[in-house]
């Protein structure tokens, strides 16, 4: 198709879609106006019904818990697909050095970088744990806290280098965390059925409003999500980092350990 024909097709498609787009844009609520119905009802109902202060967590883990279960398995499938794709080409062998660009000097970390990473890594991990544990009280939750925890492991790479990172981050543990988290969430759906309740029904004691232990079953589901996201994202980082691993073969001359 020539560029002119492509442009003509684009223009025709744009013209055809224009009325619908204009109608949709015209029907949007004005900027800053609140879509009050759902939010107001959630705000009125949830503190009494579920004893939870963070409405987003209440929706994610309880009112629309089934959606989150689906997202959980989407994440699992996506990470599994990435691992299969990347590891399939590379295999599971290990060498203890990273690939390096020819002609580019690799300097060891300075002591300042190592110190900063050790301090910041611990603080980041603590903050991630805080975000995970306070899911039902303050903004955040298993997903956000899990990604923060996963990015804390990256500071190991920055501070300790490739070999330290490979020593610290073990793939099998990540597999177990990821699968175990998803399993925990699925069990949160199935176990209530054993006691005669509905799938994902919140059967645990709800606790005290604005307390760390509030929300009942939400806390367990949140833990499952945190485990799965921490394991999944760290696994993703690990698999991508492994793409920079030096090949086992001797065909790359002039390398020594990183």
């Amino acid at each position, binding site marked *: 198709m020539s560029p002119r024909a492509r442009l003509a097709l684009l223009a025709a498609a744009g013209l055809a879609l224009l009325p619908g787009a204009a109608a949709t844009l015209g029907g949007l609520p004005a*900027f800053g106006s609140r879509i009050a119905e759902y939010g107001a009802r959630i705000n009125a109902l949830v503190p009494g019904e579920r004893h939870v202060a963070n409405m987003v967590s209440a929706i994610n883990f309880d009112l629309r818990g089934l959606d989150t279960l689906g997202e959980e398995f989407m994440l699992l499938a996506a990470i599994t697909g990435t691992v299969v794709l990347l590891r399939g080409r590379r295999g599971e062998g290990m060498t203890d050095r990273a690939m390096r*660009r020819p002609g580019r000097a690799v300097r060891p970390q300075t002591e300042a970088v190592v110190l900063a990473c050790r301090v910041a890594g611990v603080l980041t991990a603590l903050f991630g744990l805080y975000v995970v544990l306070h899911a039902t009280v303050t903004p955040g939750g298993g997903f*956000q806290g899990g*990604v923060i925890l996963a*990015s804390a492991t*990256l500071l190991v790479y920055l501070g300790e280098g490739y070999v330290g990172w490979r020593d610290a981050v073990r793939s099998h543990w990540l597999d177990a965390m990821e699968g175990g988290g998803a399993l925990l969430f699925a069990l949160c759906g199935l176990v209530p059925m054993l006691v005669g309740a509905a799938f994902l029904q919140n059967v645990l004691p709800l606790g005290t409003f604005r307390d760390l232990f509030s929300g009942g079953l939400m806390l367990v589901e949140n833990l499952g999500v945190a485990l799965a996201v921490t394991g999944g994202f760290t696994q*993703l980082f690990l698999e*991508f980092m492994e793409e920079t691993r030096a090949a086992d073969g001797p065909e790359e001359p002039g390398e020594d350990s990183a």
Partner: protein
Amino acid sequence: MSALLAVLFLLTAASGTAVVLVRDPGRQIFAIAANGLVLTLLFTALQAPDVALSELAVGVAAVPLLFLVALMAVRAGRPEAGSGGDEA
């Protein structure tokens, strides 16, 4: 709409445009991280702290890292160390 929101919208537009206009992939990754940081501030200003936390963790840390590693793997995998600024 407050002045803060107006400034943040302008910054969002500017940083988003920068991601497109920067042609060197290495710099583009940092442009996209800056864009994520601006979006985080915007979501915070719009009172969506949950979304802001997600954007901060995913858009500023995770995605740029994956891009950086992928870019490094592509460049290191090539036999000759070219300038590598054209493919993207």
